[in-house]
Each structure stands twice: as structure tokens, then as C-alpha cells.
């Protein structure tokens, strides 16, 4: 259930900003496109009262440590509590453009050069996270903004995990949070110790597959249960036999197959390596 706040109520609470429009809310945050008095655009996110403080602290910590053009920039984080009044919000840079999900159209693959440009820049952002030992765990089209110049920005670090810090989930499980359609096998079947940078690379592989072929490697609309998606992601190799995949240049097929390996050991070791290959394959 998304956390929804009426834009008029939000405007009332934050009179320093002009509220332009409501953005798609998540379960934990109501989001708005706002402008300050100087006319600068931001994304203001109001945090749901029941949201775990520890988790938001992690998100803030993650965002504070990364400074990269392909990762959303944190401007302000405030938590204040007075009797009868609590203000808990994040201000991030506002990314003009659209979500990646609006540009991935079934049956319409992207031109190769556009794929190489977009995804190599996305790899730059992912590698910046890797250098800070942060795993996003929820890389999906809705969490990637596309600027008007077609460059990507990774947003929403609500499920991010810092590998050097203890996990917030208390059980040994705890890998299974995020969006199943973009899960890696270890997010279905593994423990939290199995989650690392290569978990994000698997999701990157799914996005890359969708951009190159115009279809999802594992998911189809007939799948109604998580169990069906799990089976496809963890056990199926149907993605290697689809006609749209078979039609790709052999080198692209090698890269895609590798990103979508079930075992992390067989995936590329990091996003920088993938980015370099994308540039080479795209002739950049």
C-alpha cells in the first residue's frame, strides 16, 4: 500500500517550497516535485510514520557516501519531532526526464548504440556504489530515471545494503526483499550473505535484455505467483533460446548470458568490467 499524502497538505507543511506535482509514491515515501524560492527543482520525499528509522538511516548513509552523476544526489535529510508535530523527509535532486519503465516498450528493442551509451553510464553509477560496498538490491526500471540527454540516474536506495554493516533483518534469510521480477536467484533462494554487487548485475542483465530484445528474459504476464517467477529465474534457461535473443550479435549474447548466470561466480565481477565491454560492443 503506497504512502499517499495530499499535495495540498504537503504544501501546507512545507511553505518554503512550491509543490509542482505529486510523483509516484512508494510504500514508505510520498514523493513530490517541488521548487525552492530561487526556482531550483527538487524531489521532496515525506517518510511514512511507521517506517523503520534504522532503514532510513541506512538509505541516507548510502546516499551520503556516493557522489556520482549517475546516482541521485541527496540534498537534505531532516527528522524533527515536537509535541503533535513530526517532520521526517528527504530532499533529493530532481531528475528531469522519465522513468526507464516508460522507455522500455515490449517488442521495441533499442538501437545498439543507444543501449551501449545508456547502460555503460548505468554501469558507472553501479560501480560507484560498488566502490562504497553498497548493494542497491532493487534495481528495476521504476528506480532508474532517464534524463532528457538520455543519461541514467539510479534512485531510491530504500533497500540498499552496506556490505560492511550488519544487516537490518534479524534472520539468516533476508535476501528476499525487493521486486521479484528483477530478483537474482540468490534473492529467492539465498541468505543475506549471498547478496553482493553481482546481485545488482543480475538485475542489470534483465534490464539490458529488455532493452536489446524488447522482452523480458524470464517474466511473462501469465505468471501470477512469486513461485512461478522464482522457478523461471532460478531454474529456466528459456532466455537463451528466445528468438529475439538468438537474433543478437554473438558477443552481445555472451555478455547477456553471463550477466544472467544463476551462480554469482560466473557473472562479471563488477559493473566497470561490464561498462567497458558495453563500450567496446557499442563501438563507443
Amino acid at each position: 500500500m503506497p504512502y499517499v499524502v495530499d499535495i495540498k497538505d504537503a504544501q501546507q507543511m512545507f511553505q518554503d517550497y512550491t509543490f509542482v506535482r505529486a510523483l509516484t509514491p512508494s510504500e514508505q515515501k510520498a514523493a513530490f516535485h517541488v521548487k525552492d524560492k530561487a526556482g531550483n527543482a527538487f524531489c521532496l520525499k515525506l517518510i511514512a510514520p511507521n517506517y523503520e528509522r534504522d532503514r532510513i538511516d541506512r538509505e541516507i548513509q548510502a546516499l551520503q557516501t556516493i557522489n556520482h552523476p549517475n546516482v541521485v544526489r541527496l540534498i537534505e535529510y531532516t527528522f524533527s519531532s515536537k509535541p503533535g508535530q513530526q517532520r521526517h523527509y528527504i530532499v533529493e535532486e530532481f531528475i528531469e526526464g522519465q522513468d526507464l519503465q516508460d522507455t522500455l516498450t515490449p517488442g521495441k528493442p533499442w538501437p545498439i548504440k543507444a543501449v551501449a551509451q545508456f547502460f555503460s553510464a548505468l554501469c558507472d553509477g553501479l560501480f560507484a556504489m560498488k566502490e562504497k560496498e553498497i548493494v542497491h538490491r532493487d534495481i528495476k526500471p521504476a528506480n532508474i530515471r532517464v534524463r532528457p540527454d538520455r543519461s541514467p540516474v539510479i534512485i531510491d536506495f530504500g533497500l540498499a545494503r552496506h556490505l560492511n554493516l550488519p544487516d537490518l533483518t534479524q534472520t539468516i534469510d533476508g535476501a528476499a526483499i525487493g521486486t521479484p521480477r528483477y530478483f537474482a536467484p540468490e534473492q529467492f533462494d539465498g541468505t543475506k550473505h549471498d547478496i553482493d554487487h553481482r546481485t545488482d548485475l543480475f538485475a542489470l542483465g534483465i534490464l539490458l535484455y529488455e532493452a536489446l530484445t524488447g522482452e523480458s528474459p524470464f517474466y511473462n504476464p501469465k505468471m501470477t505467483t512469486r513461485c512461478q517467477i522464482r522457478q523461471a529465474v532460478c531454474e529456466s534457461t528459456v532466455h537463451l533460446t528466445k528468438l529475439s535473443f538468438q537474433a543478437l550479435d554473438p558477443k552481445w549474447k555472451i555478455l547477456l548470458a553471463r550477466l544472467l548466470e544463476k551462480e554469482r561466480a560466473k557473472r562479471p565481477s563488477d559493473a566497470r568490467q561490464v561498462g567497458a565491454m558495453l563500450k567496446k560492443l557499442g563501438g563507443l
Partner: protein
Amino acid sequence: MRRGAWHQCGDRSQKLVEEQLQQGAGVGVIISPRDLSRKNAITYAERYRALGAELLLDHQYYVPEFTNERFDSYPISRFRKGVSSLNKISDQDLTNFRNELRVDHEELKADAVIAPAVVYQAGRADILQLNARLFAASKRVADDLKIPIYATVVLGRSVTASDRTLQTALSQATALSCDGWYFAFEFEDERLPSVRETVRRSCIAGLILACTGKPVLHAYAGPLGLLSFGFGATGVAIGHSQNLWKFTRDRWMPAASQGGGGDAPARFFSNALWGTIIYPDETSQLPAAIRNQVLTPSPFSGPVASNLPWSRWDSGKHLVYVLAQQFSTMAAETDPRKNARAAIALLDKALSLHATIQQSNVFLGDNTNAYQANWKAALEDLLRDNQGDFDFFDLLN
């Protein structure tokens, strides 16, 4: 990491290694604290470096509770404890461990840090965590000294027992952000590994590591190193003693006797047989034409050509030299598939030669023809079943 043969130091290796480097055999040296005191290690490190070798120090935490007098000459040895004790190591002790590791690497002027690590075992999450902590400490040393960090991946028998356990262990081990891999594979206890399935699995493990795009140094390879450039290794570690021909934890257990082979006759390592033949007991039985094919010469095998007495010590030098030359040739070729095919061709010829020897009613000892066919088959399996890995390796390079 330089491409080619690396000298894996062992017991009484230091002068032999120096002599080999003088002959232009080998590109690097891995110092063994088990066999060389700290003071001697510093002295020899300088001499090896003067001969142009790259230098590494392997602190050998495989059986971390094992120590001896030479190990004890390194202050870091106070952290040689069992896994359960190491699991409880405090942050302060880890800082001390790091400081000792740093001092050793600084004084030896090592070219990279090999992160100490315990042998990986199936289902042992505690070992994963311990190795990750030791790696993090070692990486800080490497970062401070501005040299690369190599993660140690020594796969124990419980891991190497099946493809599934192998891949799981590799997924965990390869999570470490290193600049290269120091890799060894624990085989069953035999003179040279001969089981096709296990040898195939060792090649798969090496290929998976090579597909990370980082250099792989195949430690304790010995003659099996013939296969290593076929799975994408950058360096192959060789040594004169049979203890250095494969990885086994037994070597780090307290020994019942001093070992050394007693009065056993010299073994001649023949490139053409890719194996040893007992000199002169077996070589003298060979018909002249076969004998000429078998006795591939080296700067250390002079007396053999004239059938003169030849010491075991010189046979060790000859072995290391022949391996180094072969591996130097293979290292010049960067395509692992070509190297795998070259190794298959060499093993094929060796098998034919062994067959010819048997046809002349000479039956060689030491089980010296027990493994070539299976090594060849293992490489053929690798080329056939792991095309995707080779394709990805090509794409990376």
C-alpha cells in the same frame, strides 16, 4: 602479476631458485615462511629481486594452527591459531595482525600482498567470514603500500567433491574485491592428481577465476601446471619437491619423520613423457632411439647424456628448469584455448611414447604413466563443456 613460471619455495629451495633465475628460468618467487626464516627470507628476497624476479610472500594460513621454528621467526605467527580461535579475533588483534603483515611485506619489498586465508570448506560460513576479515585486513596493507592484493582461494576436498559445491564456494570466494587470485585445489593423496573428474573440476575452478578478468596464480601446480595456461592462468607455481606438485594440507600437519626420500635414485623429468623416469635404472633399459626421445636435456642434466652418476639434487634442478621452459613457452600465448590444445597435443605424444616404451617391454615405476590420459581427457572436457566461459574470457581480453 607476470606471466610464466613462478618458483614456489619449499624446503631447501632457496639456492635452487637463485640458480634457476640465473639461468633465466622463472619470472617470480613465492617465499615460504614454513621453510625459510624471516632473516633468510629478507636476504634471499633481495637476491631474487636483483635477478629480476617478482616477489610474493605466502603466509600459509591453510592450517592456521600449524607452526614451526621458522614460522615462529615471523612476529605474525602469534596469530597462527585454530579457526575457532581466529573466528573470535578482536578488532584490536586484527589491527596488530595487519601491522605485522605490513612490516613483513615492507621489509621483503613484496610486489603484492597474498591475503592469508584458511582452506575453503563446504558449508562453513564461519570460514567465509574469517577469510573475508583476513582479506579486509590484508587489503588495507596492500592499499597502504600501494601494491596489488591477491585473494587466496584454496579449495578443500569437501568443496571440490562436486560441481555444485565448487560453484557455491567460488561464488562466495569471488565476492572479495581483489586484484588477482592465488589459487590452489586440494587433491586426493597421490603423487600427481590422476582422477579425470577432479582434474577437470580444478580446471573449471581456474577458468571461473580467470573469467573475473583478474590474473590467476596457480599455486602448488608442479607438472599439472601444463593444464593451467589452458584455463587462463597467468602464473604457474613450480618447485623441485613432490610436496610442491599439488596442494595438500598434510604438508602443514606436524610431520612424523623428516622425509626427503632417503636414498631413492634420481628421477629424470622428461618433457616428452610429461613425467619422470628413474635414472639410471629405467633409462638404461630403453632402446637407444627411445632413450634419445625421452632424455630431453637441460643445463642441469649433463651427466645423463654420458650415462654418468647424477645426483637427486641435480634432478630436482633439471625438473624445475624443464617445467619453467615449457611454461614460459605457453605463457607467451595468451589464448587459453590454444594453450589447452597445445597441452593436449603434448600429452597425446607422451601417451604414444609411453605406449612405445611398454611395447619394448620396459615397465616404468612410480605410476608415471597413470595420469596423462586423464589430464588430456579433462582438458578435452573443459574445451567442450565450458565454451561459454572461454567465449567470455575472449570478450574480456
